[in-house]
């Protein structure tokens, strides 16, 4: 069984400051981990994914995430927030035995202020 916990339901940052979205996972197998973003009234877009290659994963729009097995974490960061980063972000886990099924975290709403 696998699960995901997003530690913050809301994060507010100023434009130009760093963004940190925290995610812890639980998995019985070597997990694949993803971050998806959803802008208001839109579908989901993949930001990045970890699939047991490099532990530091770079994604689109300047985001990156680091897989830390010892801490069972997969936190998402961006050095400098942009107004267009305002959205909801989902940390997601999938296991090799799960037929590609995804287990979503509850989401983190990011607000960016000028």
């Amino acid at each position, binding site marked *: 069984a696998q699960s995901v916990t997003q530690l913050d*339901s809301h994060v507010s940052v100023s434009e130009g400051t760093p963004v940190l979205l925290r995610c812890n996972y639980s998995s019985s197998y070597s997990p*694949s981990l*993803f971050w*998806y973003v959803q802008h208001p009234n*839109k*579908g*989901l877009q*993949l930001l990045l*994914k970890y*699939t047991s290659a490099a532990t530091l994963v770079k994604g689109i729009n300047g985001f990156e995430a680091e897989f830390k097995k010892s801490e069972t974490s997969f936190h998402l960061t961006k050095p400098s927030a942009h107004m267009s980063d305002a959205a909801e972000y*989902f940390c997601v886990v*999938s*296991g*090799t*035995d*799960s*037929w*590609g*099924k*995804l287990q*979503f*975290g*509850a*989401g983190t709403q990011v607000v960016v202020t000028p």
Partner: protein
Amino acid sequence: NAGVTQTPKFRVLKTGQSMTLLCAQDMNHEYMYWYRQDPGMGLRLIHYSVGEGTTAKGEVPDGYNVSRLKKQNFLLGLESAAPSQTSVYFCASNSVGSPLGTDTQYFGPGTRLTVL
């Protein structure tokens, strides 16, 4: 290449009515999924299919049925709609990966359903 499309985009039903949501993908993917999204709960898997003619239950299957008669289509049915089924429904697909679970899942734009 349209990716994953969903029909309709919006729908309002009365309690007890039935409806079918259609998902179509043109990427020749084997796996397809139906999720529902509710505030503060992320997306939860309703049903999924690992190939034409197959379906399986996900995390929240009660009150829904599905069919995968053609590889490119995955239908979600509500036989007797209830207000608790008010939600945004997303369809997704991905290819058979090696190892399983590593491929990117592609999502449709969603269907916003309100049951009065």
